[in-house]
């Protein structure tokens, strides 16, 4: 018993939910779609989840979330397959796997690399599932003591961390956060009833609708960017015959500790805001190189370079759910989409989910393990089929994506207003890409913004307008200090680098 919740009872309950025929079917469907998405380059998991979000609204909440989660971790598996066999990482988090994975294919060990990647992912997924089952109740119990100031500071810390960990320009990531916050302001102000940024549209009184925003920024913008670059896409890749799937004893011996290290790295990095699968796989690869006695051999087909990042991206992908399910705070853009999906079903993510919706909470966790097992069993035999799918031409692929996403958006609220909005956000997303801004912080801020404003104003109410409330509460103070340190850490090297350049001129 931890925090009043029986972990083993919880897992049993979760399995009873996850193993119903309907949920098994949708879990499998999610995993297959996810793998497909992972295999196809240029179609990321964020865009896919955004596009398929409306299709899951008709399902019961736990089934819908199980499907979406399946897409998410299925994509991690699929991305590794094409990285290893063809050096075509379908997913950003599989980029590092391509280095040694494809080298192993060239050395005639491609089959073994696939097996190592799949088994390492499964191992990591299993550990992550039990990690979540064990820690979620503790975290939830601790979080129940949080008041408005703690929540505000936690979200603030989350936003800042996501900026620090973002790829590319920190300045532009901050600009995207403000843009997301601005979009989040539209609609009726809860405290005063004032309409803000409604531009006279009834449809905006409940705020900017979430699905058009994400489908526009990720789905439509992706299509625009890919179409513009797609001059050289009609070249079906050739596949070398796959060698034996069994790794040698020596490979197994080297891959095992690497898998364990990768899993641990993923477990912790997945928890960080802005972290998740991508950061985990890069860090795990770097760590392996550092631990290795022969770092110079990386890139020539080291089995550790496959096992560690694959384990890390899978465990990172899963533990990213922990802040969402316990704190109610999404740590990356995909988790923000999960919040959107929960909200549609009328579920408020947060510490109370475990007690008020135990089927959903434990069912989702158990389904991740079931899904990982399915992926292990179905993926290796299906490798040939997945690779064949790469031959689908973009000429047919993009109209299909467009149709599913646009009709799906209409299907959420049955208003063409949302469809027009999607077009606008699609063009915006295209230009943001051109201007080298990441849309992920924007989505995160869009989801967190209204909650932050609400908690901030509530804190002020509780403290009768004394801003010292953020300093007087010890948990809030600790988070404030962490935030300030993080901010300083980005400002200092940034300013120094800039000054260096300025002096050099």
């Amino acid at each position, binding site marked *: 018993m931890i925090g009043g919740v029986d972990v083993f009872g919880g897992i049993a309950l979760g399995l009873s939910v996850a193993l119903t025929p309907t949920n098994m079917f949708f879990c499998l469907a999610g995993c297959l779609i996810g793998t497909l998405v992972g295999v196809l380059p240029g179609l990321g998991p964020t865009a896919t989840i955004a596009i398929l979000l409306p299709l899951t609204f*008709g399902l019961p909440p736990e089934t819908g979330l199980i499907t979406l989660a399946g897409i998410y971790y299925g994509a991690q598996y699929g991305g590794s397959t094409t990285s290893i066999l063809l050096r075509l990482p379908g997913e950003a988090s599989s980029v590092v796997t391509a280095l040694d994975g494809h080298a192993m294919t060239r050395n005639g060990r491609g089959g073994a690399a696939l097996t190592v990647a799949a088994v390492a992912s499964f191992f990591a997924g299993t550990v992550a599932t039990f990690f979540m089952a064990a820690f979620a109740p503790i975290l939830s119990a601790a979080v129940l003591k949080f008041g408005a100031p703690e929540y505000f500071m936690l979200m603030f810390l989350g936003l800042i961390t996501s900026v620090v960990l973002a790829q590319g320009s920190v300045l*532009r990531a901050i600009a995207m956060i403000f843009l997301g916050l*601005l979009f989040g302001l539209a609609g009726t102000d809860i405290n005063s009833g004032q309409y803000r940024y409604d531009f006279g549209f009834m449809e905006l009184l409940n705020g900017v609708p979430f699905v058009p925003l994400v489908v526009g920024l990720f789905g439509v913008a992706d299509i625009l960017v890919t179409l513009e670059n797609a001059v050289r896409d*009609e070249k079906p890749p050739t596949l070398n015959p796959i060698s034996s799937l069994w790794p040698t004893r020596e490979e197994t011996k080297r891959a095992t500790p690497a898998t364990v290290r990768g899993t641990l790295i993923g477990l912790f990095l997945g928890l960080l805001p802005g972290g998740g699968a991508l950061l985990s796989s890069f860090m795990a690869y770097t760590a392996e190189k550092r631990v290795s006695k022969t770092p110079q051999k990386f890139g020539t087909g080291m089995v550790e370079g496959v096992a560690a990042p694959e384990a890390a991206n899978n465990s990172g992908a899963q533990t990213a759910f922990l802040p969402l399910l316990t704190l109610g705070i999404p740590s990356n853009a995909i988790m923000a989409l999960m919040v959107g999906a929960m909200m549609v079903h009328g579920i408020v993510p947060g510490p109370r989910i475990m007690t008020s919706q135990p089927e959903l909470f434990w069912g989702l966790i158990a389904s991740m393990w079931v899904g990982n097992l399915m992926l292990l069993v179905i993926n290796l035999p299906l490798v040939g089929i997945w690779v064949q799918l790469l031959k689908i031409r973009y000429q047919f692929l993009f109209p299909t994506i467009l149709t599913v996403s646009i009709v799906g958006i209409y299907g959420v609220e049955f208003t063409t207003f949302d*469809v027009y909005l999607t077009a606008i956000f699609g063009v915006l997303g295209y230009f943001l890409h051109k*201007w*080298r801004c990441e849309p992920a912080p924007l989505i995160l801020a869009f989801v967190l913004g209204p909650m932050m404003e609400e908690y901030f104003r509530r804190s002020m109410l509780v403290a009768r307008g004394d801003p010292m409330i953020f300093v007087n509460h010890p948990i809030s103070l600790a988070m404030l200090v962490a935030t300030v340190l993080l901010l300083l850490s980005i400002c200092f090297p940034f300013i120094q680098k800039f000054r260096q350049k300025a002096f050099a001129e």
Partner: protein
Amino acid sequence: MQANTTNGRRDNTHVPLGVFLIAIGLAALWVARDYDTGTFTSMGPGFFPKGISGCMILMGILVILFRGKDLPEAEEDGRDSATAIARLRVIGLVTASILVFAATLSPLGLPVATFFMVTIAGFSHRGSQPLAILATAIALAAFATALFAWLLGLQIPVLPEVLR
């Protein structure tokens, strides 16, 4: 030497991005002009809008001042190889296809609207045969109707208005 290489890489994204951010910030500030600001300790509905708008303008100015030096030393992958006309064609046709879908859905029904959308969007892909585009459009119109209207049972108009 390093300074030379960074200066040698021209960044042409900071000016449009900066101007965009400033413009959005100013517009948001102007729209929010009548919202009650309140004070820091007892905020009105206008406090956050005005604060965030101000920060947007500040960000825009900073982006322009940094002149692209905030970007990591990225490898140039020749992304901007497309000509302006090719770009305009892609954005124009895809956006138009979505707008046409929205405009025709109610009067003409789902299959026809989907057919129009896919046909228009199809021409944004260079090297597509018109016949292939039409075939894709017909197939997707049937697919969308089957999936959304029948399988998922959503209340989407299928028949044109005159036939309903």
